[in-house]
């Protein structure tokens, strides 16, 4: 830019979030004067902001972290005290609300960490959320994928900052530079150990009076999976100067430690200092959702909507709740609002279609499904076909239902619900062999749903195979103890068996 000081221009570009250009201008400045602190600071900031992921955002936990977790206190926690053991009988029942692949009630909004409950076995962990590849093997490789671009960026003119050569103790006293540097080490170099070292020195240099450094130190500990130390630092930070950052990081640490109640408590404390803060309200709602307490989750989402009526997550969650709470008309209103707000996705049209169908607006329903199909990827496609099959079945069009279900399992061969319904259709047609095969597949690919067990039991009973029926109905009840038809069937079976015995 002509006539404008280059440093001013770099700062201007940085403020306008044109990081790459800004970094280039800084590089030129640094080439002229390598000791230009302001340019060094700006370049560090640009490179960092370019790749920075919000520290407070929850990440998908890696396979290794979940399975080799040493922080869980109890191996068999009580319901509601752990993400791996959600409350089973609160909110809407399992019979009505579908589950995600790992057996957590489907929420209205997908974000990292909401998809899978903590699995209890390796097998379940691998299978979590649709396909084996969805969960990164460790978060160290999965989450920081963007690292590659960062190192390439700095690779242009050699490594920008070689941290191993810096005297971190000295930098800790340069208050401005240290902050930029620590974020650079964390986000660009991804060297948590060094970042922690710098944070520790800086905390000391600030005479333990700087909440920000304590929060960053806590974040570093968290990255290193030293949750107890992280908790200590973050608590201290929050106590000294309440801040949303520390509060959210602390809650994140509790979530990683599988202590949902503490996380909720932490959010509540944050809300005392920052009343009606949307991100904290959303945090509570997510944790409640995670432990299966859907009633409370919906309460929090409602509070959130009162503060910020444009929150998409809250609207979607409320819509899902209303839909499964047998109020499809209200759900339809919420979904329509989402559509008006500019959300356009296969999932939304799918939900709209279902709500329309349930609210008996049949003409709209199929149109919505058609649109959803045109936008869907494979995974969503399977669910949409499943729903079309459901519509077909409800309308008595078994042929449509069967073909839609076959398409559903073609798109996603792990769609257990589709296999189950396919089994029901085959059973009704009298093909008990095919039906049995479908039920067994359903049980195999989705061990968390109880319907195929119940259906299999019913079929076995009809065929006179009491032992198989007894086994399957018990399995069904183990998965969902409040399932009335299963209970009745078990009673009947017991009566028959005792008759035989006597």
């Amino acid at each position, binding site marked *: 830019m002509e006539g404008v000081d280059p440093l*001013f221009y770099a700062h201007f570009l940085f403020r306008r979030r044109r990081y790459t250009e800004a970094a280039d201008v800084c590089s030129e400045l640094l080439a002229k004067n390598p000791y230009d602190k302001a340019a060094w600071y700006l370049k560090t900031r640009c490179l960092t902001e370019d790749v920075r992921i919000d520290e407070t955002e929850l990440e998908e936990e890696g396979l290794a972290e979940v399975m080799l977790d040493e922080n869980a206190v109890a191996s068999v926690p009580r319901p509601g005290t752990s993400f791996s053991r959600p409350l089973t009988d609160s909110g809407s029942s399992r019979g009505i609300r579908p589950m995600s692949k790992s057996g957590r009630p489907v929420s209205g909004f997908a974000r990292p960490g909401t998809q899978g409950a903590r699995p209890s076995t390796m097998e379940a962990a691998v299978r979590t959320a649709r396909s084996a590849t969805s969960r990164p093997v460790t978060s160290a490789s999965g989450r920081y994928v963007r690292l590659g671009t960062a190192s390439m960026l700095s690779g242009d003119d050699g490594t920008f900052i070689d941290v191993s050569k810096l005297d971190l103790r000295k930098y800790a006293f340069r208050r401005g530079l240290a902050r930029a540097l620590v974020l650079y080490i964390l986000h660009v170099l991804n060297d948590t150990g060094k970042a922690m070292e710098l944070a520790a020195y800086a905390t000391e240099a600030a005479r333990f009076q700087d*909440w920000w450094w304590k929060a960053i130190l806590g974040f570093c500990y968290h990255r290193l999976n030293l949750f107890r130390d992280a908790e200590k630092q973050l608590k201290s930070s929050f106590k000294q100067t309440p801040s949303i950052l520390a509060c959210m990081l602390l809650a994140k640490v509790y979530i990683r430690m599988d202590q949902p109640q503490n996380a909720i408590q932490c959010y509540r404390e944050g809300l005392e200092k920052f009343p009606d803060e949307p991100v904290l309200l959303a945090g509570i709602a997510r944790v409640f959702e995670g432990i299966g307490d859907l009633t409370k989750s919906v309460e929090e989402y409602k509070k959130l909507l*009162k503060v*910020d009526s444009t929150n998409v997550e809250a609207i979607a969650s409320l819509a899902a709740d209303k839909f499964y709470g047998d109020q499809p008309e209200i759900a339809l209103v919420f979904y329509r609002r*989402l559509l008006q*707000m500019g959300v356009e996705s296969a999932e939304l049209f799918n939900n709209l279609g279902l709500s329309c169908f349930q609210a008996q607006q049949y003409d709209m329903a199929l149109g919505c499904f058609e649109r959803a199909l045109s936008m869907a990827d494979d995974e969503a496609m399977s669910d949409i076909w499943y729903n079309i099959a459901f519509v077909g079945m409800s309308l008595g069009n078994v042929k449509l239902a069967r073909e839609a279900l076959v398409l559903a399992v073609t798109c996603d061969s792990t769609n257990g619900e589709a296999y189950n319904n396919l089994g029901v259709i085959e059973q009704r047609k009298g093909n008990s062999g095919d039906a049995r095969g479908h039920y067994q597949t359903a049980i195999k690919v989705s061990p968390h749903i109880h319907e195929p067990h119940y259906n299999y039991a019913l079929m076995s009973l009809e065929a006179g195979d009491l032992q198989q029926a007894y086994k399957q109905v018990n399995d069904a009840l183990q998965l969902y103890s409040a399932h009335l038809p299963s209970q009745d069937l078990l009673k009947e079976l017991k009566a028959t068996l005792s008759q035989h015995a006597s």
Partner: protein
Amino acid sequence: MSLFQAKEFWTTKACEPGTTDIGSLVVGNIDNNKDGIERIVVGSLTGDLSIYTVAEMEYRSEDLLFHTKLAPVLQLEMGAFSSPDARELAILHPREIAVYTVKGIVGQGVELSKIFGAKLERTAANFVPGRFGGAVKDVICVQSMDGALSFYNHGRLGLVRFVPDFLVPGPLCYLQHADAIITSSATWAVCSYKFLVLASAGEAAAQRSGDSSQRSTKEGGKRVTSDWECNIGEEVLQLRVCGTKTPCILALGRTSLFWIADDGSLLRSNRIESPLSCCLPFRCVGESAHVVVCGTDGIVRVMHDKKVAWAAGGAGSPVAVATTTQCGVKGLLTLLDENGTLSVVYLGTDPRLPVLKSQNEHNYEAMDSELKRLQKIMSAAKDGKLKTVPDAQLQVEISDFYPVDPVRSEVDPSAVFQTGLTVSLSAPAGYVATDVVMRIVCERPLICDQVAINFEDQAIDEETAVDVRLAFASVVGVPVSSLHAALSITYTVKGQPQTYECEVPLPLTLAYDVAPPNKTAQHKITIATNHTCITMNELFPELLRGHEMTPAIGFRLRDTDEVATVISAKTSSRYRIQADSWSTMAGVLVAVTRALRQHFSGSTPPLAISMKELPSLSPLFTAIDTHFHIRRAKAEMAAALGEQATQFRSLQKRLLARVKDVTPSPIDQMSSLLEATQHEVHMRWLFTFDLDDAAFHRVSSIVSPHVVDTIEQGWEESTLASLTFLISTTLARSEKDKIVNPGPLQLPDSTDKLHRYIKLFVDRLPGSSIATGEA
């Protein structure tokens, strides 16, 4: 995401894209006109300065009142710089600060006249006007790129003071009632500097010489110290004074809005989950205030304290915002966005109508007929009536076996490839096969030098034929149970996948050598035919070429002493196969029956082979039991391996814990324990995987002789399952037997049930539909 859209009232392209900043926009009655019409002044980094007026709802070229080109414009402010009530325009250039009056000329727009200007010593970053120290008119405080605050009163330089801990210039604002300049530093804190403190700080502070200690002590002046600091932990983009009853400061961070009281305490903070760019407080009544917050996501949020009172999307990416009253409409927003577009918008109340991608109109009739056609095919496929075999096929020719140069197998060094054959693939005219993949499957111990051949890009058509040479060998010392290789070829013709499958009979000499016959043997099998016996020279002509006529031939399993002998009876039409072990006989029996069939093919009556007496089942059961025990032992070993692995892992964990420990205690015997465990784990691995070459038996085709053990499923289960199925279906004696749901396949507790079922199967087999060949 927002329900409502910002509605355009008036818009124009004001300057080049990417040249506008947070201070590039000023809205107000800058030319002091009588009607109080607010003009819009826009400056840009390219030096374009434009003044607009809004006459009606649409932009007309007359709306541009004034345009000129100056040095780059960094910031614009309106203020009373020459007299207490004036409205003048201050423009900051990189090296100059200038104040202009704007005068309206009837019918010719406006004109600018410079009142005063001052050249700047240092490169400027930004400035703030204010009545510092109780001045009656606005004084300009310019912040330079190196952190000097210079105060200009009517174009004369007054104070120059340096901001401590300076790195890059932060935003400025002036808090009137506290007479303090608020700024934010690279330490990500909002700091307040009282004007009095600045003024009374040593003159020497102006001389930016060396480090701060020198400044404060040597020169004798007071250090500039901040009144208060509020550590917010984020870079500040903009600072604004919010005119509530007790004024507070709004600090706009990257994703948060902070409300700071005039004593430096954080009142509240709002986190907004989108990158923010500018904010503007307005209508501050009592303690509550409205703030317009714009972000890069194109949504204008109107916050009422903490709550989002209104949100309107589609506002582009504004960098500066101001409220304005135009054409008598109050509460309009003036937005200047990154692309240099200047627009006056109002917050519409119509919900946005979703603009959906138009879908093609469906031709329902065509779709119906297509569906019907497809359904016809589907139902035909279900009934098995669909014609799947195409008219023409890939032609596969398999040559006879011929000797090849011996090559040792890489898979198993004891096997040497000595015989081979050629498979020729060709296509009839007008036929093109692509994606050709050939797979060859042999049962161990027989192996083929190729497992799968992928021709990839090579298409086979009438001009291109492909010859594939395959070589076969047998692993030495293991009895052979079958003598054929399965060949399967998959290819695509006109987008349709096709397959070709065939079985290639393998010669007995792969695994056996001809040897002198043994007269005596422990086990014997006698088979009877309906033709007169032939000599061995007739039966195996290629093996006994040039030999005397002999009724007996021996086959030695290569590299072992086990010999199976085939003897043809002199009078009756029987053949006897005898050997010391049952397993040796398996391959020979296959070869004999094959040779018999080949020899008598086409003869009348057709050859029938039968066996008068059944061999005893006990050796089979013994073999099954042995195999079963091996599998049990293997399972136990796997369990032990699991335990060892757990121990290994916990040892690793303990070691890791030691590594983490700040004061490590001695590692004691851990390393040796770790080594021992690891050794044990490895040993067990070796044991576990070497155990698989168990028994091979002669059983009929239903009770498969191929022992394919995987971790999940073994021979016993699958055989048991197929037997159970057969007994309950084809071989069922009563209707009651038929209803059995097969259970999952698991390693059975004992082999009793299997024994029982095999006996049952052998008992029922004669006379059943399987034996008589009826489907």
